[in-house]
């Protein structure tokens, strides 16, 4: 019973992963499909607004606001990048797992506990100079994220427990664990009875980059962390030996085993790396934006990052672009709500539609046959 469940899960996860990883060379699936997906999603979003009695002028206004709020000003760009940082970091971790054939749903939990660890390290070690303090806090986040994720990796390697189920369960545990931790006297903020942590001291904060221009600009040094992580994951996946092992065991675990790779070790290592990146995402959020931990501080980033990784076709650069797009949608959505009075829920619908269309490339190709004909001809020439 449990074995057949495992097999079904494996098969369906593999099917999803194959689509994300194998299509990467294909220019059509990597670029054209996402572009059309965004266009169709925006169009359908407009239809949904029409259906909910929003007039055409307001719809036009709301899309102008979406563009203005995401890239239309310095503060819009700052907000887009700020929102993209944790999405890209966590998305990179997930992409790495996908490459290794692991469908990790646990980024949310790894992000929460990683962020929590970063906050605790930050206020416990108050008084250190920032050159030590900040890296230590970031490292604590990455380490705890890695440890938490490797539980699921170990369960899979040692017992065959499927990572989809174990990471979902670990997420649920992390929510309650966070509630509990935030109530502990050495973590809870003085004078408060609700679950809220002490604040991050200044020397552990990721410095704001643009506050000398305007104190409201929130872009922080985590953006460098994000770019470094993109480079690192790219190197790890495509240039390093362990990355080759990840990809080999993701493509064909049996062949990898016969080639002498230790599958259990690879699973745990891949999960741990993914968890470290998710933990880093949590740490960058608390050290760069929030300054403290509260029960809902992850705000679903760990789940959105799954979409980011899938949309980026599990390629580091793709993840960066997808994360920027999602960040732009978040920042622009706020402006949309403000200028046109359109509900923020609509942005969630548009995001979901984009994912639906990206997950179904055939649907997009059917909708826009002319968008793909030219490419096919070009390909036909080389065949």
């Amino acid at each position: 019973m449990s074995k057949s469940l495992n097999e079904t899960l494996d098969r369906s996860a593999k099917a999803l992963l194959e689509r994300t990883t194998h299509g990467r060379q294909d220019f059509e699936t990597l670029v054209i499909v996402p572009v059309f997906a965004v266009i169709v999603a925006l169009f359908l979003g407009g239809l949904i607004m029409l259906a909910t009695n929003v007039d055409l002028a307001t719809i036009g206004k709301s899309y102008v606001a979406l563009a203005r709020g995401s890239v239309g000003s310095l503060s819009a760009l700052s907000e887009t990048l700020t929102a993209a940082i944790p999405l890209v970091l966590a998305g990179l971790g997930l992409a790495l797992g996908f490459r290794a054939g692991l469908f990790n749903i646990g980024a949310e939990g790894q992000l929460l506990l990683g962020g929590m660890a970063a906050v605790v390290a930050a206020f416990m070690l108050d008084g250190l100079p920032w050159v030590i303090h900040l890296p230590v806090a970031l490292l604590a986040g990455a380490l705890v994220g890695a440890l938490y994720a490797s539980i699921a990796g170990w369960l899979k390697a040692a017992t065959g427990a499927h990572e989809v189920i174990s990471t979902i369960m670990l997420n649920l545990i992390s929510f309650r664990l966070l509630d509990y931790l935030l109530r502990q006297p050495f973590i809870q903020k003085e004078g408060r009875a609700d679950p809220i942590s002490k604040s991050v001291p200044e020397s552990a904060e990721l410095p704001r980059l643009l506050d000398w221009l305007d104190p409201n600009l929130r872009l922080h040094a985590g953006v460098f962390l994000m770019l470094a992580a993109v480079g690192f994951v790219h190197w790890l996946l495509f240039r390093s030996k362990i990355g080759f092992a990840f990809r080999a065991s993701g493509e064909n675990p049996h062949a990898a085993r016969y080639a002498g790779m230790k599958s259990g070790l690879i699973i745990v290592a891949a999960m741990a790396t993914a968890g470290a990146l998710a933990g880093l995402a949590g740490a960058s959020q608390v050290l760069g934006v929030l300054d403290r931990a509260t029960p809902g501080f992850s705000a679903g980033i760990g789940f959105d990052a799954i979409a980011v990784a899938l949309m980026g076709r599990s390629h580091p650069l793709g993840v960066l672009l997808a994360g920027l797009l999602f960040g732009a949608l978040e920042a622009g959505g706020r402006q949309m709500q403000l200028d046109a009075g359109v509900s923020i829920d609509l942005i969630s619908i548009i995001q979901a539609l984009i994912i639906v269309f990206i997950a179904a490339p055939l649907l997009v190709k059917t909708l826009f046959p002319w968008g793909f004909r030219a490419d096919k001809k070009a390909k036909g020439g080389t065949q």
Partner: protein
Amino acid sequence: MTILKRVPKGAAIAAALFLSTTAASAFTACQVTDTGGIDDSSFNQTAWKGALDAKDALGIEARYLESQAESDYDANLNSLQGGDCDVIVTVGFLMGDATQKAAEANPDQKFSIVDFAYDPTIPNVLGQVYATDEAAFLAGYLAAGVSKTGILGTFGGINIPPVTIFMDGFVAGANYYNAQNNANVMVLGWDPVAREGLFTNNFESLDDGRSFAQNLYDEGADIILPVAGPVGLGSAALADELGTDALKIIGVDADQYLTDPDKKHVYLTSILKRMDSTVKAVIETAQSGTFEGGLLVGTLANDGVGIAPLHDFEETVPEDLKAELAAIRAGIIDGSIKVAN
């Protein structure tokens, strides 16, 4: 000639258009909601009603931004900076830190926050707080008098002062009933001395509202006060299924008989926190230029808090009990009955 005639007409139309747009954007009140959302039938909706009332009465513009998570507070406040908003109203205790940060970074911007009192006060922030325990005291007394099982229940969203003040007053009211009538009505879910009780730890989950109410009902409670914004709607759904003989709900913030019309029959009464009237008042002062930072306290005496009409229960609640409630209300206002100890 015709051209000459047309020109002033066109100019007049242009001028009229220009005037109407400048008049419309002359004064804008912006609001940032808490995570419960603008349509929570309770906390955020009541505060937003204040902005809408001000819009109708004063002809101003009103805009809002919903926070979907706590991490949105700063981002939402940021996107309101830049001079478009004449006054920014933030709704909820949890936004206290974010509002303070924004107010200190933008000293020329007027802010007002519902449910937070700064100590010391910030010159450009007006805190709106409510002596909700006075109204909850009345509701506790009423519930104790109506309960058949002699057991009342309550639970909160998060253990923060603006939530627990409801529970404090509710327990105090029930205790006062016991002292006056030599009764022994118990309140489950909140210990005012230990400051501990039942909390859902969120202001969103209707499922939690249902399961917490179910637990209290299983322990014998037949009237429940959920203090968690939209979470209470889940409790109301349970009461609707069980029937109001088995379980009644006391609404919070708004008169939930009116804001939750599908389940209106389950509400014995509602503890009103008139955020709509204080928000409107703040917008008025901001528009007329008399805005000052500091503290605005809503009480029974100034109608900042109160309890809603009994509506469907008007017939079932005994006249004696209603008379006692009126007397207690007067006693709280003149200070002869102490709500808090």
